[in-house]
């Protein structure tokens, strides 16, 4: 091979540098982004380079390796923090009308919200459980790898200007009252009722590197798997499969599917038109 004749394929070089960066992040900080979908990572890393004035990926790598505080900022480009209370109301309606009636039959209920981001999904589920009179005998594990997001999730305070959207979603999800029953407003924020929080447990947990920590009846993992490649999706769904009790439930984002993965046969669709699955009996 005549190296001098190799063409400068920009995409190929970018991908090589990106992989080196992911290796570096893993070795230095033990965050494992190596199994993330490359198509959107490429784009976000290009943004990070622009935002932090790094002309080359190696400049970004240098700062990430040498400045832990810088990595904490850059983290916002490795993960995507977008969430909404009762996002896709039909999903929450499906849980309310079809899944909770089954969970009611258990003496205690454990729910795992994997990739909970800033907590909108967790607080929505707590309201759902409260309205079905199940919250007192439930535990909600809320996990994520982004420490900033987890801190926000624990706080349960969201900007007041998001409440009209959240309220519409809540009602469309079969809400029995008014969303404002659950929060108090102050200084442009809506702070959710502390009573909802009693049963929540927040923890740093990675679907890429950690293992199962508890048996649960329902896993809600929405719009997290879309950021993973197929192999990492298989790992994550394998964790859910292991964590779920016999005939337990798994809820995914509206466009996420088990169909293309290794665990397709371990689950069956449970709610029509929603990505809510139930583990089949072994």
């Amino acid at each position, binding site marked *: 091979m005549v190296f001098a004749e190799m063409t400068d394929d920009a995409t190929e070089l970018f991908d090589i540098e990106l992989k080196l960066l992911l290796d570096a992040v893993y070795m230095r900080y033990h965050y494992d982004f190596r199994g993330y979908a490359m*198509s*959107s990572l490429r784009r976000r890393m290009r943004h990070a380079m622009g935002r932090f004035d790094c002309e080359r990926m190696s400049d970004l790598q240098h700062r990430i390796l040498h400045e832990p505080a810088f990595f904490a900022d850059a983290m916002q480009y490795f993960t995507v923090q977008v969430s909404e209370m009762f996002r896709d109301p039909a999903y929450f309606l499906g849980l309310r009308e079809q899944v909770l009636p089954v969970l009611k039959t258990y003496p205690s209920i454990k729910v795992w919200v994997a990739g909970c981001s800033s907590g909108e999904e967790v607080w929505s589920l707590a309201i759902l459980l409260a309205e079905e009179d199940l919250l007192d005998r439930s535990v909600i594990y809320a996990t994520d790898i982004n420490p900033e997001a987890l801190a926000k999730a624990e706080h349960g305070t969201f900007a007041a200007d998001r409440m009209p959207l959240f309220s519409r979603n809540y009602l469309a999800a079969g809400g029995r009252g008014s969303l404002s029953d659950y929060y108090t407003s102050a200084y442009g924020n809506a702070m959710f009722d502390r009573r909802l929080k009693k049963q929540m447990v927040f923890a740093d947990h990675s679907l890429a590197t950690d293992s199962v920590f508890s048996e649960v009846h329902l896993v809600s993992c929405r719009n997290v798997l879309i950021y993973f490649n*197929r192999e990492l999706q298989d790992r994550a769904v394998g964790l859910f499969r292991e964590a779920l009790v016999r005939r337990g439930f798994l809820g995914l984002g*509206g466009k996420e599917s088990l169909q293309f993965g290794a665990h397709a046969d371990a689950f069956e669709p449970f709610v029509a038109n929603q990505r809510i699955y139930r583990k089949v009996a072994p």
Partner: protein
Amino acid sequence: MAWPSPLEALVIGASAGGVAALQTMLGSLPGSFQAPVFVVLHVPKDRPSGIPELLGGYCALPVLEADDKQPVRPGHVYFAPPDYHLLVESRDALALSMDEPVLFSRPSIDVLFESAAAVYDRGLLAILLTGASSDGSEGVAAVRAAGGKAWIQCPVEAAAPAMPNAALAHAGADAVLRLGEMCERLKGSPA
């Protein structure tokens, strides 16, 4: 003729006026069309669009709304779902993302075109149709920089000329064509 040879994939972006234009364009694809087709059409969020089903009725190829990590099959048409970006992850798989809207749009034409350019480089044909936004300009630039070809709808003819105009000014094109001309070419596609 401004064709990639061989043609490995087709991406199409459309915004205002795009439903009618896509109906014509997808209707012209022959049943023997081999390349996979990926489409971003700007649609209002929060509404099941129903557009893939609608347009599927006019197209000889199967038309689907994409799921995450869906396998890519030849001669299938994949639409971005409302409120998600659609990306080409590899020759075998699509990917969706909830990253921030780009130029107020999710799905974004730029995001689709750039991701497809990275996977198919010289084998990619990108078609940019009518629209009132400037989405697609960066995408067309990325496709052309990677060696793929771009056809842009003649702005004079487009229902909304802003999007084709913006892309032409920013990235140029391998061909500027009327919708009817594009369709004629696609009918006789070399692939």
